[in-house]
């Protein structure tokens, strides 16, 4: 079974590791990204970046940053899905993305009713969506729909906050009646859950939603449930935070971890204007990524999918964590890391193994140079 390629041609693992090590050794600005891997793989990616003086980011961190920026600038109210399943009597669906990337969460909430809390159990669970599209819930569960474009939702929620605070509310895009309806829906909840996707509303919109939850908690109980398209990016951000102090977009180029959300963004580094001159791209979970770097940036590809070797300077085929080998993965349903057993054990190397071998290669090269 072929597991390594140099310039698209099959090579031994040792040859490919040597070639990748040489490429990284000559790089002025290495970038380790993709980062679709398990905890062991992410840990190894940090070690490689540390040895190489490289930047590390997840390829899809852009979807997380509205949440990260809003939370660290202004704080947040966050709930676990399991707790909301048992406790939320009213669910406000904000925007259109929850119905797509959060469909599993909505299904779980629609198929259950709150059973905890004097204030929240007994009357079932009501849903309201402020979105452009109507939301169809399973089992014929009804959801009130207030037609509102994404661009107007943040204004609407601002007006709801003003209404809840007893302040005057001007004429907005949706009208006072809608504002009143949403405000009443939330303030009369025993425990309200607000579901939204931070990437749909950006940092300011996300801050507005956290602010709404904070306002509600002055008199009742409420929290938010985030939906994100790439839960593994959230896991990588958590791991980056305990490793470096920062949620991704970090560099070890100057001998200690530095963080710059703009400069060290994977998207920027992979684009033509990015300083990265060699890219280590890790795509080692089930289901292939579709955002591989452009061919003008020499790439060391570590991928679990088949047929992904073309265009890469050096490529390694590895097992997918949780499918081909055991691994620890971030689980959005649980809201934390979960040890996941392989469906079937494979002989393929792991992403962590290849990344560790590359880090060792750099160490050996450095010793030879000395």
């Amino acid at each position, binding site marked *: 079974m072929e597991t390594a390629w140099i310039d698209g041609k099959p090579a031994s693992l040792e040859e490919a590791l040597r070639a990748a090590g040489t490429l990284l050794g000559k790089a002025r600005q290495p970038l380790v990204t993709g980062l679709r891997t398990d*905890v*062991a793989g992410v*840990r190894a990616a940090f070690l490689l970046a540390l040895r190489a003086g490289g930047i590390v980011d997840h390829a899809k961190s852009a979807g997380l940053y509205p949440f*990260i920026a809003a*939370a*660290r*600038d*202004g*704080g*947040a*109210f*966050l*709930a*676990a899905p*399991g*707790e*909301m*399943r*048992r*406790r939320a009597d009213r669910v406000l669906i904000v925007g259109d993305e929850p119905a797509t990337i959060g469909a599993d969460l909505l299904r*779980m909430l629609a198929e*259950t009713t709150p*059973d*905890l*809390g*004097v*204030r929240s159990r007994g009357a079932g669970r009501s849903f309201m969506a402020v979105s452009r599209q109507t939301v169809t819930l399973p089992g014929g569960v009804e959801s009130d729909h207030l037609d509102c474009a994404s661009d107007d939702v943040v204004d609407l929620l601002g007006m709801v906050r003003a209404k809840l605070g007893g302040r005057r509310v001007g004429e907005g895009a949706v009208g006072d009646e809608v504002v009143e309806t949403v405000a009443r829906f939330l303030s009369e909840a*025993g*425990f309200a859950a607000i579901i939204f996707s931070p990437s749909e509303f950006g940092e300011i919109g996300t801050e507005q939603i956290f602010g709404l939850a904070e306002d509600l*908690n002055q008199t*009742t*109980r409420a*929290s938010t449930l985030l939906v994100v398209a790439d839960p593994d990016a959230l896991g990588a951000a*958590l*791991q980056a*935070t*305990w*490793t*470096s*102090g*920062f*949620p991704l977009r970090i560099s070890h180029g100057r001998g*200690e*971890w*530095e*963080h710059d959300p703009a400069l060290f963004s994977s998207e920027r580094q992979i684009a033509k204007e990015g300083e990265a001159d060699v890219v280590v791209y890790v795509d080692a979970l089930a289901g292939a990524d579709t955002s591989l770097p452009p061919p003008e940036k020499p790439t060391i590809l570590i991928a679990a999918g088949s047929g992904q070797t073309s265009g890469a300077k050096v490529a390694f085929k590895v097992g997918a964590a949780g499918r081909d080998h*055991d691994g*620890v993965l971030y*689980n959005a*349903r*649980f*809201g*934390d*890391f*979960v*040890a996941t057993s392989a469906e079937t054990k494979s002989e393929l190397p792991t992403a*962590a193994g290849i990344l560790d071998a590359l880090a060792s290669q750099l160490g050996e090269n450095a010793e030879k140079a000395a």
Partner: protein
Amino acid sequence: MLTRLKGGHVVDPANDRDGVGDVFIEDGTVVEAPAPAREADETIDCTGLVVMAGAIDIHSHIAGGHVNTARLLLPEWHRAFSSRPGETALSKVGWTTEETGLRYAEMGFTTVVEPAMAPSSALHAHLELADTPIIDKATLVVLGNDDLLLEMIRAGESDAAIADYVSWTVASSRALGVKCINAGGSAAFKENVRKFDFDDVVPDYGVSSRQIMKTLQSAVKTLGIPHPLHVHCNNLGVPGASSDAIEATIKAAEGDPLHLAHIQFYGYGTEGKRRFSSRGQKLAELVNATKEVTVDIGQVMFGQTVTISSDELRQFAGAKQASPGKSIIFDHEANGGGVVPMDYKKKSFHNALQWAIGLELFLLIEDPSRVFFTTDHPNGAPFTTYPDIFALLMDRGVRARWLEALPKSVAKMTSLPEIEREYTLGEIATMTRAAPARLLGTADRGHLGAGAVGDVSVYRPGDDKAAMFARAAYVLKDGDLVVRDGAVVKRKFGRALTLRPEPDKAMQTRLDRYFDDKYGLSSRWFEVPEGALGREEPFKVMPCRA
């Protein structure tokens, strides 16, 4: 390999040693002095130095979801984020897992307990601990706001069934003990309750905080878990109500061991024109008189920090005082939690009195084996402030200088200026080595007798006690020299100390069904498999009492 620590002043209260002598370590373990003919492979000259066992911190929030959220919330804490890293108040904060391990080791600490691990965050906490170098670690798992326990108490289930549930939680989360945090308080807050006393009842369940605490205390005893139930009382930080809560909790120990955490935050009265006063003296007297109780302090020191707690109710209330003005509040399964930044200011009457109350408690609680050295890192202060606290305890001149710099109104409200006690080296070693090992049931450490792990801290004594404890001259971890002159010279990984009780199989079956039916979760997701941590031998199992 045989290592000889030669000619140091050995302070080992567990073995009644307090004089000049040698310590020998072979293959990672302390051994008796070998026959005179045998030469050591390595000799470290400790002449003029103080030799102690590695220090143990029993309560320091170093890992897990809430700690990591605090890192996220406060990027300005990290020195690389600052334009003037050398001059920021927090430039010395051990903030990442890497820094946590290194900074602790440099001060001579070799074992640290993360005291608030939610069962649902157990794997996350252990992943962080596995990335924390040098030191050994342990965790306390949190119960007391979880639906199942409250439901079992409400239903009048047997002590044995409840003990089985506690046993399963300890075993699956790989904990060393059990903690309850404002028992019932988070559950009540989810019902929109804003104040919760020791005898208040959680709505819907009809069980009081007292019942929950007593139930867990009993389960811990039944299971033979060496560390007594570790309690974070109700009404933390509320003048008057906090001191009432801890008094009621101490009296509820009723002859059985109980550990009360960060009691400084409960030493607040309502006297004076600001309605904020010290009840340190009264609390210390109560602790002195209640022999079954142990406490740690949670000393406040001045400067920016962040509070991290699973006491969601109190963290939500405290968010109004957040500085900078931002906080993150969680509603998780069972425990909630909150992360609230705090800037303790020398010029603040309240903050300065908090500082004084902590020291009153340290100095007025007579038995150093029942009072433990903590700042509740990072809640009262980062652990990197420990050297200054040692100096404050060991030198009343240092205390006087610090008091002089505080608002004059503070000195009138505390007995601290009149307290002459100075901790001796022996008392420091008892408080930070011998007693914590006994409290945790980790007989393999905290002393320098034969059979102990080769965790040794060597200090250069001097009048400046802060300097002495800030930079150990040498630290050995499992016999390896890891710190020399206050700097790490060898980086390795320690282990997590765990218990391994064996719960009844019927409880596993019940929990499989419970988590699936009620939460849509697999009970297996709460487990911490050894292979998940990516370290060789990540755990060391400690025995339960027979």
